[in-house]
Protein backbone atom coordinates (compact mmCIF):
# COMPACT_ATOMS: atom_id res chain seq x y z
CA UNK A 1 0.00 0.00 0.00
CA UNK A 2 1.54 3.27 -1.03
CA UNK A 3 1.22 6.48 0.96
CA UNK A 4 -1.25 7.79 -1.57
CA UNK A 5 -3.48 4.80 -0.94
CA UNK A 6 -3.29 5.41 2.80
CA UNK A 7 -4.58 8.94 2.25
CA UNK A 8 -7.36 7.70 -0.01
CA UNK A 9 -8.50 4.96 2.37
CA UNK A 10 -8.57 7.26 5.36
CA UNK A 11 -10.68 9.79 3.50
CA UNK A 12 -12.95 7.01 2.27
CA UNK A 13 -13.25 5.54 5.78
CA UNK A 14 -14.17 8.91 7.30
CA UNK A 15 -16.72 9.60 4.56
CA UNK A 16 -18.38 6.23 4.94
CA UNK A 17 -18.51 6.56 8.72
CA UNK A 18 -20.03 9.98 8.33
CA UNK A 19 -22.59 8.80 5.76
CA UNK A 20 -23.67 5.98 8.05
CA UNK A 21 -23.82 7.86 11.34
CA UNK A 22 -24.40 11.43 10.10
CA UNK A 23 -23.07 12.56 13.46
CA UNK A 24 -20.39 15.12 12.68
CA UNK A 25 -21.96 17.27 10.00
CA UNK A 26 -25.42 17.37 11.56
CA UNK A 27 -24.07 18.32 14.98
CA UNK A 28 -21.85 20.97 13.41
CA UNK A 29 -24.71 22.51 11.43
CA UNK A 30 -27.11 22.62 14.37
CA UNK A 31 -24.49 24.01 16.70
CA UNK A 32 -23.73 26.75 14.18
CA UNK A 33 -27.41 27.61 13.86
CA UNK A 34 -27.61 28.03 17.62
CA UNK A 35 -24.52 30.23 17.58
CA UNK A 36 -26.10 32.43 14.90
CA UNK A 37 -29.29 32.63 16.93
CA UNK A 38 -27.42 33.65 20.09
CA UNK A 39 -25.51 36.29 18.16
CA UNK A 40 -28.62 37.81 16.67
CA UNK A 41 -30.03 38.12 20.21
CA UNK A 42 -26.82 39.65 21.49
CA UNK A 43 -26.60 42.40 18.89
CA UNK A 44 -29.76 44.11 17.78
CA UNK A 45 -28.88 44.88 14.20
CA UNK A 46 -30.23 46.92 11.35
CA UNK A 47 -28.88 46.16 7.91
CA UNK A 48 -26.08 48.71 8.13
CA UNK A 49 -24.84 47.39 11.48
CA UNK A 50 -25.15 43.82 10.21
CA UNK A 51 -22.71 44.53 7.40
CA UNK A 52 -20.09 45.62 9.92
CA UNK A 53 -20.25 42.60 12.21
CA UNK A 54 -21.52 39.82 9.98
CA UNK A 55 -18.05 38.67 8.87
CA UNK A 56 -16.97 38.35 12.48
CA UNK A 57 -20.09 36.43 13.49
CA UNK A 58 -19.71 34.16 10.50
CA UNK A 59 -16.12 33.22 11.30
CA UNK A 60 -16.76 32.76 15.00
CA UNK A 61 -19.54 30.34 14.10
CA UNK A 62 -17.34 28.55 11.54
CA UNK A 63 -14.41 28.28 13.94
CA UNK A 64 -16.53 26.90 16.79
CA UNK A 65 -18.25 24.36 14.59
CA UNK A 66 -14.89 23.50 13.05
CA UNK A 67 -13.54 22.70 16.50
CA UNK A 68 -16.47 20.35 17.10
CA UNK A 69 -15.71 18.51 13.87
CA UNK A 70 -11.97 18.44 14.53
CA UNK A 71 -12.44 17.07 18.04
CA UNK A 72 -14.63 14.26 16.73
CA UNK A 73 -12.12 13.43 14.01
CA UNK A 74 -9.74 11.65 16.36
CA UNK A 75 -11.96 10.93 19.36
CA UNK A 76 -13.98 8.49 17.22
CA UNK A 77 -10.71 6.62 16.63
CA UNK A 78 -10.51 5.84 20.35
CA UNK A 79 -13.35 3.31 20.03
CA UNK A 80 -12.16 -0.24 19.52
CA UNK A 81 -8.52 0.94 19.73
CA UNK A 82 -8.63 2.26 16.18
CA UNK A 83 -5.92 4.77 17.10
CA UNK A 84 -3.46 1.95 17.80
CA UNK A 85 -4.37 0.43 14.46
CA UNK A 86 -3.63 3.74 12.74
CA UNK A 87 -0.28 3.94 14.53
CA UNK A 88 0.58 0.54 13.13
CA UNK A 89 0.24 1.64 9.51
CA UNK A 90 3.63 0.86 8.01
CA UNK A 91 3.70 3.90 5.71
CA UNK A 92 4.85 7.32 6.85
CA UNK A 93 2.57 8.78 9.50
CA UNK A 94 2.27 11.93 7.40
CA UNK A 95 -0.06 10.03 5.06
CA UNK A 96 -2.53 9.57 7.92
CA UNK A 97 -2.24 13.28 8.64
CA UNK A 98 -2.97 14.26 5.04
CA UNK A 99 -5.94 11.90 4.88
CA UNK A 100 -7.39 13.30 8.07
CA UNK A 101 -6.79 16.88 6.91
CA UNK A 102 -8.60 16.16 3.66
CA UNK A 103 -11.58 14.62 5.48
CA UNK A 104 -11.75 17.39 8.07
CA UNK A 105 -11.46 20.03 5.38
CA UNK A 106 -14.29 18.44 3.44
CA UNK A 107 -16.60 18.32 6.47
CA UNK A 108 -15.88 21.89 7.48
CA UNK A 109 -16.22 23.19 3.94
CA UNK A 110 -19.55 21.40 3.42
CA UNK A 111 -20.86 22.86 6.67
CA UNK A 112 -19.75 26.35 5.65
CA UNK A 113 -21.47 26.00 2.28
CA UNK A 114 -24.64 24.83 4.02
CA UNK A 115 -24.56 27.65 6.54
CA UNK A 116 -23.71 30.51 4.23
CA UNK A 117 -27.21 30.74 2.68
CA UNK A 118 -28.60 30.99 6.21
CA UNK A 119 -26.46 34.05 6.82
CA UNK A 120 -27.54 35.52 3.50
CA UNK A 121 -31.21 35.06 4.35
CA UNK A 122 -31.15 35.91 8.03
CA UNK A 123 -29.04 39.04 7.68
CA UNK A 124 -30.29 40.23 4.25
CA UNK A 125 -26.96 40.13 2.49
CA UNK A 126 -26.43 40.75 -1.23
CA UNK A 127 -23.68 38.51 -2.45
CA UNK A 128 -24.41 37.51 -6.04
CA UNK A 129 -21.30 39.12 -7.53
CA UNK A 130 -18.80 38.15 -4.86
CA UNK A 131 -19.78 34.50 -4.54
CA UNK A 132 -16.68 33.02 -6.21
CA UNK A 133 -14.40 35.29 -4.22
CA UNK A 134 -16.14 34.30 -0.98
CA UNK A 135 -15.70 30.65 -1.88
CA UNK A 136 -11.99 31.26 -2.35
CA UNK A 137 -11.77 32.92 1.08
CA UNK A 138 -13.69 30.04 2.68
CA UNK A 139 -11.40 27.56 0.96
CA UNK A 140 -8.14 29.20 2.05
CA UNK A 141 -9.22 29.80 5.62
CA UNK A 142 -10.65 26.30 6.03
CA UNK A 143 -7.45 24.72 4.75
CA UNK A 144 -5.54 26.67 7.42
CA UNK A 145 -7.98 25.72 10.19
CA UNK A 146 -8.01 22.04 9.29
CA UNK A 147 -4.23 21.84 8.72
CA UNK A 148 -3.36 22.96 12.24
CA UNK A 149 -6.58 21.69 13.82
CA UNK A 150 -6.01 18.10 12.70
CA UNK A 151 -2.59 18.08 14.35
CA UNK A 152 -4.00 19.34 17.64
CA UNK A 153 -6.97 17.00 17.42
CA UNK A 154 -4.51 14.10 17.28
CA UNK A 155 -2.45 15.63 20.06
CA UNK A 156 -5.26 16.31 22.50
CA UNK A 157 -7.12 13.06 21.94
CA UNK A 158 -4.86 11.12 24.28
CA UNK A 159 -4.82 13.56 27.19
CA UNK A 160 -7.21 14.38 30.01
CA UNK A 161 -9.83 17.13 29.47
CA UNK A 162 -9.40 16.92 25.71
CA UNK A 163 -12.66 18.73 24.89
CA UNK A 164 -11.37 21.78 26.76
CA UNK A 165 -7.77 21.60 25.66
CA UNK A 166 -8.42 21.53 21.91
CA UNK A 167 -9.95 25.03 21.73
CA UNK A 168 -7.55 26.39 24.38
CA UNK A 169 -4.53 25.32 22.35
CA UNK A 170 -5.98 25.89 18.90
CA UNK A 171 -7.66 29.28 19.08
CA UNK A 172 -4.58 31.38 19.95
CA UNK A 173 -2.66 29.70 17.16
CA UNK A 174 -5.31 30.44 14.51
CA UNK A 175 -5.51 34.15 15.34
CA UNK A 176 -3.97 35.04 11.94
CA UNK A 177 -6.52 32.89 10.09
CA UNK A 178 -9.39 34.47 11.96
CA UNK A 179 -8.19 38.03 11.39
CA UNK A 180 -7.44 37.44 7.71
CA UNK A 181 -10.70 35.57 7.05
CA UNK A 182 -12.83 38.20 8.79
CA UNK A 183 -11.12 41.11 7.05
CA UNK A 184 -11.28 39.49 3.61
CA UNK A 185 -14.91 38.44 4.07
CA UNK A 186 -15.81 41.91 5.22
CA UNK A 187 -14.11 43.38 2.15
CA UNK A 188 -15.87 41.00 -0.20
CA UNK A 189 -19.30 41.57 1.38
CA UNK A 190 -18.85 45.34 1.19
CA UNK A 191 -17.96 45.04 -2.48
CA UNK A 192 -14.57 46.71 -1.98
CA UNK A 193 -12.05 46.41 -4.80
CA UNK A 194 -9.94 43.27 -4.49
CA UNK A 195 -6.70 45.24 -4.14
CA UNK A 196 -7.87 46.48 -0.74
CA UNK A 197 -7.91 43.07 0.89
CA UNK A 198 -5.78 41.02 -1.46
CA UNK A 199 -2.99 40.86 1.15
CA UNK A 200 -5.26 38.94 3.52
CA UNK A 201 -5.72 36.25 0.89
CA UNK A 202 -1.95 36.10 0.49
CA UNK A 203 -1.53 35.83 4.25
CA UNK A 204 -4.01 32.94 4.31
CA UNK A 205 -2.14 31.18 1.50
CA UNK A 206 1.19 31.58 3.29
CA UNK A 207 -0.33 30.33 6.55
CA UNK A 208 -1.80 27.28 4.76
CA UNK A 209 1.50 26.31 3.20
CA UNK A 210 3.59 26.90 6.34
CA UNK A 211 1.30 25.01 8.69
CA UNK A 212 0.55 22.13 6.36
CA UNK A 213 4.30 21.53 6.10
CA UNK A 214 5.12 22.04 9.78
CA UNK A 215 2.13 20.03 11.01
CA UNK A 216 2.89 17.25 8.52
CA UNK A 217 6.37 17.04 10.02
CA UNK A 218 5.19 17.33 13.65
CA UNK A 219 2.51 14.68 13.17
CA UNK A 220 5.25 12.02 13.11
CA UNK A 221 6.07 12.98 16.70
CA UNK A 222 2.43 13.02 17.79
CA UNK A 223 1.78 9.48 16.58
CA UNK A 224 5.09 7.96 17.59
CA UNK A 225 4.70 5.70 20.59
Amino acid at each position, binding site marked *: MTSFNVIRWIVWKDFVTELRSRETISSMVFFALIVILIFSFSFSMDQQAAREVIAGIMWVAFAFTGIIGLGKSFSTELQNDCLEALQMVPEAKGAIYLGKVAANFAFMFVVEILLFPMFVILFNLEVVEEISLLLLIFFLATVGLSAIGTLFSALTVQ*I*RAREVMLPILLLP*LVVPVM*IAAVEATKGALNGDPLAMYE*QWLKLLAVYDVVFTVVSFW*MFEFVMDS
Partner: protein
Amino acid sequence: MTIHRVIRKVQRFQGWFGGGAALCLGAGLYLGLIGSPPDYYQGEVVRIMYIHVPLAHTSLLGYTVLALGSLWYLWKRDPIVDNMCQAVAALSAVFTALALGTGMIWGKPTWDTWWTWDARLTSFTVLLLILIGYIMLRTFVDDHEKEARYGAILAIIGFVDLPIIHFSVEWWRTLHQPQSISMRGVSISSGLLAPLLCMSIGMSLLFSYMVMVRTQLLYLDRLLHAKKGRLLSQFHLSKSDS
Protein backbone atom coordinates in the same frame (compact mmCIF):
# COMPACT_ATOMS: atom_id res chain seq x y z
CA MET B 1 26.80 9.56 34.50
CA THR B 2 26.87 12.36 31.99
CA ILE B 3 23.72 14.02 33.23
CA HIS B 4 25.30 14.50 36.64
CA ARG B 5 28.39 15.99 35.06
CA VAL B 6 26.20 18.48 33.21
CA ILE B 7 24.41 19.42 36.41
CA ARG B 8 27.69 19.83 38.30
CA LYS B 9 28.98 22.12 35.56
CA VAL B 10 25.77 24.15 35.66
CA GLN B 11 26.04 24.42 39.43
CA ARG B 12 29.58 25.77 39.11
CA PHE B 13 28.45 28.50 36.68
CA GLN B 14 25.08 29.46 38.05
CA GLY B 15 26.60 31.58 40.82
CA TRP B 16 28.20 33.81 38.19
CA PHE B 17 24.84 34.30 36.52
CA GLY B 18 23.10 35.09 39.80
CA GLY B 19 25.86 37.45 40.92
CA GLY B 20 26.02 39.12 37.52
CA ALA B 21 22.24 39.57 37.57
CA ALA B 22 22.38 41.19 41.02
CA LEU B 23 25.21 43.47 39.92
CA CYS B 24 23.61 44.54 36.62
CA LEU B 25 20.15 44.99 38.09
CA GLY B 26 21.55 46.97 41.01
CA ALA B 27 23.55 49.24 38.74
CA GLY B 28 20.63 49.52 36.33
CA LEU B 29 18.19 50.43 39.09
CA TYR B 30 20.58 53.06 40.47
CA LEU B 31 21.15 54.57 37.02
CA GLY B 32 17.48 54.30 36.10
CA LEU B 33 15.95 55.68 39.28
CA ILE B 34 18.57 58.20 40.43
CA GLY B 35 21.34 58.59 37.87
CA SER B 36 19.31 59.32 34.73
CA PRO B 37 17.36 62.48 33.87
CA PRO B 38 13.56 62.37 33.62
CA ASP B 39 12.19 62.23 30.09
CA TYR B 40 11.40 65.51 28.36
CA TYR B 41 7.85 64.49 27.46
CA GLN B 42 6.93 61.85 29.98
CA GLY B 43 8.73 63.10 33.09
CA GLU B 44 9.37 60.62 35.88
CA VAL B 45 6.87 58.15 34.45
CA VAL B 46 9.42 57.04 31.86
CA ARG B 47 11.39 55.18 34.55
CA ILE B 48 9.05 52.19 34.38
CA MET B 49 10.54 51.60 30.95
CA TYR B 50 13.69 50.25 32.65
CA ILE B 51 11.62 47.37 34.00
CA HIS B 52 9.06 46.99 31.23
CA VAL B 53 11.31 46.79 28.17
CA PRO B 54 13.84 44.32 29.69
CA LEU B 55 10.94 42.09 30.81
CA ALA B 56 9.51 42.07 27.29
CA HIS B 57 12.91 41.36 25.71
CA THR B 58 13.64 38.57 28.14
CA SER B 59 10.30 36.86 27.64
CA LEU B 60 10.87 36.80 23.87
CA LEU B 61 14.36 35.47 24.45
CA GLY B 62 12.85 32.84 26.73
CA TYR B 63 10.39 31.74 24.07
CA THR B 64 13.21 31.39 21.54
CA VAL B 65 15.14 29.22 24.00
CA LEU B 66 11.98 27.17 24.59
CA ALA B 67 11.53 26.53 20.86
CA LEU B 68 15.20 25.61 20.34
CA GLY B 69 15.14 23.36 23.41
CA SER B 70 11.98 21.68 22.12
CA LEU B 71 13.62 20.99 18.76
CA TRP B 72 16.62 19.58 20.58
CA TYR B 73 14.35 17.40 22.71
CA LEU B 74 12.47 15.97 19.73
CA TRP B 75 15.80 15.19 18.11
CA LYS B 76 17.81 13.75 21.02
CA ARG B 77 15.14 12.98 23.65
CA ASP B 78 17.29 14.32 26.48
CA PRO B 79 15.13 14.37 29.63
CA ILE B 80 17.15 17.18 31.17
CA VAL B 81 16.47 19.37 28.13
CA ASP B 82 12.79 18.77 28.69
CA ASN B 83 13.17 19.86 32.31
CA MET B 84 14.80 23.01 31.01
CA CYS B 85 11.93 23.62 28.56
CA GLN B 86 9.42 23.25 31.36
CA ALA B 87 11.35 25.72 33.52
CA VAL B 88 11.75 28.20 30.65
CA ALA B 89 8.05 28.05 29.76
CA ALA B 90 6.86 28.80 33.28
CA LEU B 91 9.35 31.65 33.72
CA SER B 92 8.60 33.08 30.26
CA ALA B 93 4.92 33.10 31.13
CA VAL B 94 5.67 35.01 34.35
CA PHE B 95 7.92 37.50 32.53
CA THR B 96 5.35 38.00 29.75
CA ALA B 97 2.59 38.61 32.28
CA LEU B 98 4.81 41.07 34.14
CA ALA B 99 5.71 42.82 30.89
CA LEU B 100 2.00 43.21 30.09
CA GLY B 101 1.27 44.37 33.62
CA THR B 102 4.03 46.99 33.71
CA GLY B 103 2.99 48.05 30.22
CA MET B 104 -0.53 48.68 31.49
CA ILE B 105 0.79 50.72 34.41
CA TRP B 106 2.90 52.71 31.98
CA GLY B 107 0.05 53.06 29.51
CA LYS B 108 -2.35 54.66 31.98
CA PRO B 109 -0.45 57.96 32.47
CA THR B 110 1.05 58.18 28.95
CA TRP B 111 -1.73 56.89 26.69
CA ASP B 112 -4.48 57.61 29.21
CA THR B 113 -5.81 54.06 28.97
CA TRP B 114 -4.95 50.76 30.62
CA TRP B 115 -5.42 48.79 27.48
CA THR B 116 -5.57 49.31 23.75
CA TRP B 117 -5.62 46.76 20.96
CA ASP B 118 -2.28 47.90 19.71
CA ALA B 119 -0.33 45.42 17.55
CA ARG B 120 2.41 44.74 20.07
CA LEU B 121 0.01 44.40 23.01
CA THR B 122 -2.17 41.98 21.07
CA SER B 123 0.68 39.74 19.96
CA PHE B 124 2.09 39.66 23.49
CA THR B 125 -1.31 38.63 24.80
CA VAL B 126 -1.46 35.81 22.27
CA LEU B 127 2.07 34.80 23.28
CA LEU B 128 0.96 34.64 26.92
CA LEU B 129 -2.07 32.53 25.93
CA ILE B 130 0.17 30.09 24.06
CA LEU B 131 2.51 29.79 27.04
CA ILE B 132 -0.38 29.20 29.43
CA GLY B 133 -1.73 26.61 26.99
CA TYR B 134 1.69 24.94 27.05
CA ILE B 135 1.72 24.78 30.84
CA MET B 136 -1.87 23.47 30.95
CA LEU B 137 -1.17 20.87 28.28
CA ARG B 138 1.71 19.50 30.33
CA THR B 139 -0.41 19.13 33.45
CA PHE B 140 -3.05 17.18 31.53
CA VAL B 141 -0.76 14.43 30.26
CA ASP B 142 -0.10 11.49 32.56
CA ASP B 143 2.98 10.01 30.97
CA HIS B 144 6.33 11.85 31.37
CA GLU B 145 7.68 11.07 27.93
CA LYS B 146 4.41 11.95 26.22
CA GLU B 147 4.11 15.15 28.23
CA ALA B 148 7.55 16.26 27.06
CA ARG B 149 6.88 15.32 23.42
CA TYR B 150 3.49 17.06 23.22
CA GLY B 151 4.87 20.16 24.92
CA ALA B 152 7.73 20.32 22.44
CA ILE B 153 5.35 20.05 19.49
CA LEU B 154 3.18 22.89 20.79
CA ALA B 155 6.23 25.07 21.49
CA ILE B 156 7.58 24.62 17.97
CA ILE B 157 4.23 25.26 16.29
CA GLY B 158 3.75 28.36 18.42
CA PHE B 159 7.22 29.62 17.58
CA VAL B 160 6.54 29.29 13.85
CA ASP B 161 3.19 31.00 14.34
CA LEU B 162 4.51 33.95 16.33
CA PRO B 163 5.86 36.05 13.44
CA ILE B 164 2.70 35.37 11.41
CA ILE B 165 0.55 36.43 14.35
CA HIS B 166 2.62 39.57 14.72
CA PHE B 167 2.31 40.50 11.04
CA SER B 168 -1.41 39.80 10.86
CA VAL B 169 -2.11 41.83 13.99
CA GLU B 170 0.04 44.67 12.74
CA TRP B 171 -1.80 44.79 9.39
CA TRP B 172 -5.11 44.49 11.17
CA ARG B 173 -4.44 47.56 13.32
CA THR B 174 -2.77 49.69 10.68
CA LEU B 175 -5.35 48.98 7.99
CA HIS B 176 -8.31 49.94 10.09
CA GLN B 177 -7.18 53.25 11.42
CA PRO B 178 -3.86 54.98 11.79
CA GLN B 179 -2.57 54.13 15.23
CA SER B 180 -3.79 56.99 17.35
CA ILE B 181 -1.65 55.93 20.27
CA SER B 182 1.72 54.39 19.76
CA MET B 183 5.11 54.40 21.40
CA ARG B 184 7.43 57.18 20.42
CA GLY B 185 10.30 56.24 18.11
CA VAL B 186 13.19 54.08 19.15
CA SER B 187 15.56 57.03 19.08
CA ILE B 188 16.60 57.36 22.66
CA SER B 189 19.17 59.54 24.32
CA SER B 190 22.32 57.98 25.75
CA GLY B 191 21.39 59.00 29.29
CA LEU B 192 18.37 56.70 29.06
CA LEU B 193 20.16 54.02 27.07
CA ALA B 194 22.80 53.09 29.67
CA PRO B 195 20.38 52.03 32.43
CA LEU B 196 18.16 50.29 29.88
CA LEU B 197 21.09 48.24 28.61
CA CYS B 198 22.16 47.41 32.16
CA MET B 199 18.67 46.28 33.09
CA SER B 200 18.26 44.23 29.89
CA ILE B 201 21.49 42.32 30.51
CA GLY B 202 20.67 41.94 34.19
CA MET B 203 17.17 40.66 33.46
CA SER B 204 18.48 38.07 30.97
CA LEU B 205 21.07 36.92 33.52
CA LEU B 206 18.39 36.69 36.20
CA PHE B 207 16.19 34.70 33.84
CA SER B 208 19.03 32.29 33.03
CA TYR B 209 19.87 31.90 36.71
CA MET B 210 16.26 31.10 37.59
CA VAL B 211 16.03 28.65 34.70
CA MET B 212 19.17 26.85 35.90
CA VAL B 213 17.89 26.51 39.45
CA ARG B 214 14.42 25.45 38.39
CA THR B 215 15.72 22.92 35.87
CA GLN B 216 17.69 21.18 38.62
CA LEU B 217 14.66 21.30 40.88
CA LEU B 218 12.44 19.67 38.27
CA TYR B 219 15.10 17.07 37.53
CA LEU B 220 15.48 16.18 41.21
CA ASP B 221 11.73 16.11 41.61
CA ARG B 222 11.36 13.54 38.88
CA LEU B 223 14.28 11.52 40.22
CA LEU B 224 12.61 11.49 43.61
CA HIS B 225 9.32 10.31 42.13
CA ALA B 226 11.07 7.49 40.29
CA LYS B 227 12.90 6.42 43.46
CA LYS B 228 9.72 6.63 45.51
CA GLY B 229 7.93 4.44 42.98
CA ARG B 230 10.71 1.86 43.12
CA LEU B 231 10.76 1.85 46.92
CA LEU B 232 7.01 1.49 47.14
CA SER B 233 6.95 -1.42 44.74
CA GLN B 234 9.77 -3.11 46.69
CA PHE B 235 7.85 -2.57 49.90
CA HIS B 236 4.74 -4.12 48.46
CA LEU B 237 6.72 -7.06 47.11
CA SER B 238 8.35 -7.77 50.48
CA LYS B 239 4.99 -7.50 52.18
CA SER B 240 3.40 -9.98 49.82
CA ASP B 241 6.34 -12.36 50.36
CA SER B 242 6.01 -12.54 54.13
